[in-house]
Structure formats: C-alpha cells, structure tokens
C-alpha cells in the first residue's frame, strides 16, 4: 500500500525548487486521493487498521476517514449494506471483548511498576511466570472438574489410617496417601448415572487432552515468538546501531533507573568500540589453542559435574528403595528420611549452577551472547539429566517393588516440588538479600546483586517440568504449582525492588525469550510427554489402587471401551476409525510422508525468500547510487538555470541539504 510521505512540511523550501504553491497543493491532493482510493478498496477490518496506522495526526486521519467513508457511501449498493452492518457489529464486539479482557488482566499495576524500574528484560521473567501460572490454573480446573469432582461425589475414598501431623505437607504421604491428591485416591469404577461416567476414560482423556492442549499452545507461542523475533543476520553487525537506535527502554520511568541505564549504555558503547578495535589485530595461534583447551576443559568439567550428580542421585534412589514403606505408617523417622532425596536434588540444583558460573569466569568469551547461551545449555543439561535419572528410576525400579507405585511416584514429585519451593525461598533470602547486605555493608566491591534472568527462568522451567511429569500420578499437583508460582511472584517482586539492580547486559531479551519457550517445549515438554506415554502404553498399573487396577496397561481402558461401543451399530464408525485409521501403520506412514513433503516445500520457499532479500538489498544499494547521480545532475541543472537567470544564489548547502531530504522522503516502491 502507498503511504503518505511527510513532505508537505517543507512547503516553503519546495518553492525554491521552482514549484509553485499551487503545484505543491496539487501534488498533496493527488497523493491524498490516491491514498483514499487505495483505502476504499480494502476490506472493512483492513481499512480501519490501515487508517489507524497512518503516520499522521489525529485530525488528518479523521479527514482521511471521512473522505473514505463518503466515497464508500456513494458506492454502497443495498446488498453490501447488510454485510457492512454485520462487520461493524462484529468489530464492536471485538472491541468490547478487548476491553473486557483488560479488566481481567491481573497484576497490571505491579507489572507496570516492575517494567518502569527494571526494564523490559526483567519484566519478561514476570510475564513468563504469569504465563506458566495460567497454564497451571487451566490444568487444575480441567483436572478438578473432570476427575476429582466425579470421584468425590461418587465415592469419597478417604480411608486414612493416620491423623494429620503436619509433616505430610512436606512429604505427601500419610494423611494424603489415599486422598484425591494422588493417583491412588481414584478408582476406576463406572459411575452409574445417565449417561454413565467411566472414570477410567475420564482419567485417561483428561490427562491426554491437557497434554495435547499444552503441546498445541506451546507450539503456537513458540512459532509466534519465532516469527516475531527470528532475525535474519544480514550485513555487518557490530551492535552499535541497534544498541543506539532500538535498545532504549521507553517504559522505564524511574529517575534512578534511567540514570543507571544511561551509564550502562555508555559503558557498553565504549566496550563495543574497543572490542571492534581489538578484533582488527588477530589473535595468535598459541592464544587460540590456549582458549580452545580452556573451553574443552570447562565443558569436560561441567559435563562431569552433571554426570556425577546424576550418578549420585541414582545410587541414592536405588539404595533408599531397599527399606519398605508400607511397613509402618506411623514411623515419622522413615517418613522424614524420604525427604533426603529431594533435598539432595535441590542442593545440586542450587550449588552446581554456582560452580558453572565460576567455570565460565575461567573461560573468556569475546561474545557475551555466546557466554549466556553456553551457560544456559550447561544448566539445561544438568537439570534434564537429573530429571532423566529420576524418571528412569521411577519407571524401572519402582513399579516392581511398591504396591501402589503411581502414588509413590506422585508423592516423590510432590516432595521435589515442595523442597524446590523451599530452596527457592532460601535462595531469595540468602542469594539476594544477604548478598545485598554483604555487597552494600561489608565488601563494597561486590556491589548490589544483579537479577539473573536466565537462572531464574531455568528454575521456573525445571519446576514446570516436574509439575508436568507429576500430572498423571497426582492430578491435583497443579494446585501446588499455582500456589507456588503465586507466592514466588510476590516474593521475587519484593526481593527485586529491595535487593537487586537491573542486569547490565539487557540486549536481545526477546530472542532469549524465544529460547526459553523453545526449551520449555523441547527437553521439558517432549520429555514429559514421552515419559507419560511410556507409562500409559507399557507399564502395568498397580493392582491395589488407582483407576486402572486389573488392566495390563492403562491404555487397555481404551481397547475395552472401543470393544464395548462396537455393539450399537450407530457408533460403529468410531470403532471403524479406531481400527482402520489410528491402529494402522499405513496411516502414520502416509502422514509422515505428507509432513515431509510440506516441510520440503516450506524449506524451498525459505530459500527463495533469502535469495529475494539478497536481490532487494542489492537493488537498494543501486537505487542509492542512482539517487546520488540524479542529485548531482539536478544540482548542475539548477546551477545553470541560476546563472542564466542571474539569480542571486541563496545558501547553496542549504538547498542541497534539503534536496536530499526531499528525495529520501519518497517511499521506496518495492
């Protein structure tokens, strides 16, 4: 679409070019009517968006809109009128929906305050937290409605042998053992009502639906984020331009924060300048070998640490399993000892990342972004190897040794979540509060701690993975996660405003945000999905408790159901679909083939676009050359004309200066 250029502002200067006021007015009028006719041809929704996006003042936009409307009105045919009415009411409806949604936004003021003091990058942590909170709230709602309420209404299954003692809050056993908090509290009976409510199916489909919805919304937000933030790196990038032109955070309103940001930006600009100078004198071979071996050593060390802690957890887990749980429900000591494993896991999660940051201090990265990504990769490897070992242990050893093993796994996940929460609180107190006290009172050189976004987000991802893993074994686990996130939000906010200062290197926050969503999807969600799928397809559910008792694998519930609906002929098609589509290899083979073909086409299109971008870029450069040439020509002609008319030349520089501007305001027609 054509856009209004800004040139009417320089009316007086245009006159010196030989254009009369009338000609200018004519030109502007032509432009405007062109714009109006462009706008008239758009659909109603697109037209409003386009008028809104015109870079003009309010009254100018209003004039344009009125002209568009009058043209539209003169063209309107009766049949189109109805459609217009519909589209208008639809637009109204959307606007009212948007304003209703704004009422529902929680924490708006808090978020604004955080953004105003600490900038967008810290704000993104809190937005991520809020997003996770919504996920868990949703999961809690569907689990509660479709699994827990029917179970409670049908048969309150609480046959607790022990009273409430308080330790249960930490361990999840004892009083909670037979409650609806865990898998064991459900039974797979068909609730007799019209229509009958099959608990097995409800349990299966609720969990499956939740995981599918999670997957879909993750893929959606990931692709949205990629679309917005994925940047083609073209041309030289030293960071100077974007740092100066696009990195200023207009949302920051706090006076001190602005001063701080200004100082930081100054230092960063200086750093990038000196780096650029250094880059010019190449590093010698011995230096490079030295650096490479340092990197290698650091990687070996960090992978060794991850492996070592994984092995430690494995031995601790298998060792602890030797004593029996079901023996004595009143043995407090045995119950408390179950907390050992989660405490060790959380300790590893707390200490090893600190060691990693020490290791990365040892290496020297020229690129701060590379440093951030590498530290993220190491931390993810650590956390995922811990969780992987735990899952392996839960799925391989636990099912054979413990009678109600699903509940046991649920309780283990519950303990891990609770202890992780406690460690998070400790981290806020010791890591941020005490560090601040030490930094300001005792050792001034340490300074006020920075808010480490990467570490905090990775902690959130870890906790969310746990919550997902636990969802099959403990359907009400999202409640704990919701409470936890809620408390963390406020504590982090308080701790942030009291103890921390905004991070120094804030660049490229949006790209890191994309990485975090991708991490939440790839190791975390995909891992959880495969673990739950393995449990459902392969593992024998426990015989004494749970909705799937007596079946070979939980998935047999579906087979039984399909067999049962084969009888009434009207629902035979469901059976047919199940047998011939979902259970046939050919179907999956075809699907895979189609997806591969589509991927290939999309890849080809991407390649084509890249080529196009390159060509367009060259075209811009050429047009620039053309422009310079034409300007020179214009100047010579002007000069000649002036000499001929013996016109007293004005400030020549001024004119050329203006000419450049006039040309550049013309939009590139690409």
């Amino acid at each position, binding site marked *: 679409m054509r856009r209004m250029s800004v040139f009417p502002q320089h009316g007086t200067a245009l006159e010196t070019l030989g254009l009369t006021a009338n000609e200018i007015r004519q030109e502007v009028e032509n432009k405007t009517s062109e714009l109006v006719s462009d706008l008239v041809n758009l659909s109603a929704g697109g037209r409003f968006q386009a008028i809104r996006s015109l870079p003009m003042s309010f009254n100018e936009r209003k004039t344009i809109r009125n002209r568009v409307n009058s043209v539209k009105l003169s063209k309107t045919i009766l049949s189109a009128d109805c459609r217009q009415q519909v589209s208008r009411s639809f637009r109204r409806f959307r606007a009212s929906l948007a304003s209703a949604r704004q009422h529902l936004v929680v924490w708006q003021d808090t978020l604004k305050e955080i953004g105003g003091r600490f900038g967008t990058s810290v704000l993104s942590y809190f937005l991520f937290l809020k997003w996770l909170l919504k996920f868990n709230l949703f999961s809690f709602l569907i689990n509660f409605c479709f699994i827990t309420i029917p179970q409670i209404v049908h048969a309150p299954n609480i046959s607790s042998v022990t009273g409430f003692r308080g330790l249960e809050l930490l361990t999840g056993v004892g009083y909670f053992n037979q409650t609806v908090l865990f898998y064991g509290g459900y039974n797979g009976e068909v609730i007799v009502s019209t229509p009958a409510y099959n608990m097995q199916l409800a349990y299966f489909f609720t969990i499956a639906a939740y995981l599918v919805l999670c997957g879909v919304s993750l893929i959606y937000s990931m692709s949205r984020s990629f679309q917005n933030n994925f940047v083609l790196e073209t041309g030289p990038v030293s960071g100077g331009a974007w740092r100066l032109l696009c990195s200023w955070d207009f949302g920051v309103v706090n006076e001190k924060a602005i001063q701080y940001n200004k100082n930081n930006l100054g230092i960063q600009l200086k750093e990038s300048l000196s780096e650029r100078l250094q880059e010019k004198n190449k590093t010698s071979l011995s230096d490079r070998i030295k650096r490479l071996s340092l990197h290698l050593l650091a990687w070996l060390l960090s992978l060794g640490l991850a492996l070592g802690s994984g092995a430690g957890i494995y031995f601790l887990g298998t060792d602890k399993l030797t004593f029996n749980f079901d023996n004595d429900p009143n043995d407090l000591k045995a119950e408390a000892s179950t907390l050992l494993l989660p405490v060790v896991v959380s300790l590893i999660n707390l200490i090893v990342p600190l060691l990693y940051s020490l290791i990365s201090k040892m290496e020297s990265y020229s690129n701060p972004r590379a440093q951030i990504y590498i530290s993220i990769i190491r931390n993810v490897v650590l956390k995922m190897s811990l969780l992987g070992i735990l899952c392996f242990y839960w799925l391989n050893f636990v099912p054979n040794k413990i009678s109600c093993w699903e509940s046991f796994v649920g309780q283990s996940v519950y303990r891990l979540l609770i202890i992780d929460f406690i460690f998070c609180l400790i981290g806020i107190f010791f890591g941020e509060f005490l560090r601040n006290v030490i930094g300001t009172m005792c050792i001034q050189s340490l300074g006020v701690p920075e808010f480490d976004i990467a570490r905090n987000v990775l902690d959130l991802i870890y906790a969310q993975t746990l919550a997902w893993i636990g969802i099959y074994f403990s359907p009400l686990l999202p409640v704990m996660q919701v409470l936890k996130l809620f408390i963390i939000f406020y504590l982090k906010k308080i701790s942030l405003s009291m103890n921390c200062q905004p991070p120094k290197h804030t660049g490229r926050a949006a790209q890191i945000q994309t990485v975090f969503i991708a991490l939440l999807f790839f190791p975390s969600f995909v891992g959880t999905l495969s673990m739950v799928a393995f449990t459902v397809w392969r593992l024998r559910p426990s015989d004494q408790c749970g909705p799937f008792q007596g079946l070979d694998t939980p998935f047999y519930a579906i087979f039984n159901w399909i067999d049962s609906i084969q009888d009434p002929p009207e629902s035979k098609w469901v059976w047919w679909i199940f047998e011939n589509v979902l259970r046939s290899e050919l179907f999956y083979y075809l699907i895979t083939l189609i997806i591969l073909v589509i991927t290939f086409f999309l890849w080809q299109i991407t390649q084509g676009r890249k080529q196009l971008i390159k060509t367009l870029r060259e075209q811009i450069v050429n047009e*620039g050359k053309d422009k310079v040439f034409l300007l020179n020509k214009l100047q010579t002609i002007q000069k000649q004309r002036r000499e001929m008319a013996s016109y007293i030349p004005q400030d020549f520089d001024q004119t050329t200066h203006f000419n450049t501007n006039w040309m550049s305001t013309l939009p590139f027609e690409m």
Partner: protein
Amino acid sequence: MGGTASKLPKDLLSEYQELTFLTKQEILLAHKRFSELQGRENGPYSSRVSMEKVLTLPELKSNPFRKRICHVFSTSDLRDGSLTFEDFLDLLSAFSDSATLEIKSHYAFRIFDFDDDGTLDARDLEKLVNCLTGETDDTRLTVEEMRQLISNILEESDIDKDGTVNLSEFQHVISRSPDFVSSFKIVL
C-alpha cells in the same frame, strides 16, 4: 471542562477508538489524566496543555526524549510542543501495546530526528548518543569515540551510502531488533 470533563461523549469515544490503537479503558484513563493537567492550567480554559505541564506526567518526566516526544506529537502552529487531547491520544496510541511496528518505527525516527529534516545525519546521531549516555566522565564518549561510533552506525545502517540514515534504512535496522516493539512503550 475541569472536573466534569471525565465524561466523554459516547460518539467521540467511539471515534477515538476507531482512529487510535487504544482501548476504551485506556482512552478514558487518558482523558482523566489529561483533564487533570488542564485543571491545573491557570487562566482561561484552553484545549491545549503546554509542554511544561505535559512533562509533569511521571511517565514522561524523566524520559531523556521528553521534549522531542512533545514536539513530534504536537500539532501546534507555534511549534511550542503543546498538546491537545487528540495529540495526547496520538502519543499514547503510538506508544501503546497494539500499535504496529511500522507506526512505532515512524515515530521513533521522528523523535530521533532532532532537526526535523527527515533524515538522521551525523549531528542527529551525536545528539542521540548524548541523550542516551550518562553525564559522568567515565561514561561520556570522547570525541574520537563518538566519531568512530557514528561511522560504525552509518556503515551498518546506511545501505544506500548517502551519509545519512533515512526512514526505510532506520526501519530496516529496527526489523533486526525484535526488542524494539516491547521497549518503545509508554503506558499510563
């Protein structure tokens, strides 16, 4: 107007909604804040609020570009940076969440274009750097550094090599920085 001004006529409100990126709540809030500013104005009622008054808003008070922002959005013939309510809405609309990248980059360009000549030349960039860096000695850039920085920026972003950054080149730089949309934001 004064205190009773918090009521906006319904048709005006829907017009504002139609022509800006703001939602109903945002417009009403903007109107409330704006009439507070007007209320403090001494003397006879005027539809314009002077730049000094606008800059008392906490959202703009400490912004290093506060004067530029007022000048860019002002439609005053006197070029004094005073704002009418419509100008004020334009400002908030451009800085709102739902404004498009295009409109944001357009206004960012005009804010950074200190001499209003339609391009960012070396002088504009120098002023920009001075606005954005601290005043202390260790953060202030030396003359040599400034020269180096500006030549770096031009080398990076001046695609057609005419010595200045024009609007489309500016938008090209911004398209490579996805953070811009989230940071070019002022919320009342």
